[in-house]
């Protein structure tokens, strides 16, 4: 679960909302309305203010930021890589390799060169990389933007497995059909405020 109380960052906020265990909430809103800014603020990646952020039993103000980010994992729209080989970015590449077919990649993808990856391949690998920490909350910034429909559905299946395990997911998406497939609720970010959209 994730409880956010009065989070403020630049033109965003104060926003408050709750995600329960195993719940998926989609955030929509026009481009440039600050959806990514909101995710970055929750992950404490930029300076921000908040009355309280709670993930499970962990209160953000009471733990080092490094520990918070392992529990509340953010997947940015641009994935970052710092080694030549894909496998070098994983804690346990041999174990994670078995999950590669779940996102429509072959098991030998761990041996690939990062410089030859497509945007979509990078996104899917970055998702598996971020799941290695076994986070309790996922903040996903357009995780399927660069994928075709079939692969998108595979990634969504993987996300649903996470929901079943009790992980909470906050997903930013521009795909109008995606929330219908995986989200329990939709929040719309407009003028820095969040409002629930009732179906």
């Amino acid at each position, binding site marked *: 679960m994730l409880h956010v109380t009065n989070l403020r960052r630049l033109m965003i906020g104060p926003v408050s909302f709750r995600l329960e265990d195993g719940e998926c909430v989609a955030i929509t809103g026009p481009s440039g309305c600050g959806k990514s800014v909101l995710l970055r603020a929750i992950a404490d990646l*930029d300076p921000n203010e908040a009355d309280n952020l709670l993930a499970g039993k962990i209160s953000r103000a009471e733990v080092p930021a490094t520990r918070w*980010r392992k529990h509340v*994992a953010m997947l940015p729209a641009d*994935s*970052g890589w710092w080694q030549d080989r894909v496998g070098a970015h994983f804690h346990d590449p041999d174990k994670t390799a078995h999950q590669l077919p779940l996102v429509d990649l072959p098991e030998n993808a761990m041996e690939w060169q990062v410089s030859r990856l497509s945007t979509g391949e990078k996104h899917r690998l970055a998702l598996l*990389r*971020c799941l*290695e920490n076994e986070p309790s909350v996922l903040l996903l910034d357009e995780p399927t933007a660069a994928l075709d429909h079939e692969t998108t559905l595979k990634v969504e299946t993987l996300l649903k497995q996470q929901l079943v395990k009790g992980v909470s997911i906050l997903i930013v998406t521009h795909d109008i059909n995606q929330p219908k497939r995986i989200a329990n609720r939709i929040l719309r970010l407009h003028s820095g405020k969040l409002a629930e959209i009732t179906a």
Partner: protein
Amino acid sequence: MNDYIALTYFDLMLAASFLLINGALSMGLKLGLERKLAIAAVRMTVQLVLVGLLLKSLFSILSPWLTLLVAIAMGMFAGREIWARQNRRLRGIWGFGLGTGAMSFAGASVTLIALVTMIGSEPWWTPRFALPMFGMILGNAMTGISLAQDSLHTSVVRECTAIEAKILLGADRWQALFPVVRQALRSGFIPTINGMAATGIVFLPGMMTGQILSGVDPNEAVKYQLLITFLIAGATGLGVLLATFGSVWRLSDDRHRLRLDRLSKAKEDDG
């Protein structure tokens, strides 16, 4: 030093006439360098003559305060040079202060220890020893620090996606910035290391050449050169380390965020 040969002004004019040949070549080949060449030559002449006069009076006045004042002025000029050589700089006072502080601290402490323990002149701050040594050490630390800072500030922006990806996976700021830090430290150290490796084979250092020309026994000149080179390497290493870690500390915060907002925009290319 009885075999020291003093130069006459006629000797200098004769040597400067080689520049006239270069200037004529530049005009003949339409390189357009003759103006720059003339200005640079005149500038150097004026600067060196003035420095000669300044040093001569400093050496005869023998005042610790004047010596300190000149040393501080040297530090400020070198600090400005570090600042000017960076494409992106830390915002605010840090942009000038960090590089200047690291260089001055490293240069001054190494010079101080050398003057007191190794040179042992009486008094220890005698400007004839203190200022040339401080200048040589400062100049090299300046080059190292400006290269390291420039490398760090450029690559931290270029690699920001990768750095933030590491941070998002739970890395602390030192782990996340380690690759760019290592690259910056290498950029800062390598000129010193390469310089040491090539010394004596590819070129004879200027100071040693000068001492030999003024009649010092080559063995003694070599000893002085080794001392100075060790001091330079020590001060450059210390200065580069201080400035780089200072920058990392400034470019991140205690919540392990990358703070590129504390870095200025890149200088526009002036074509």
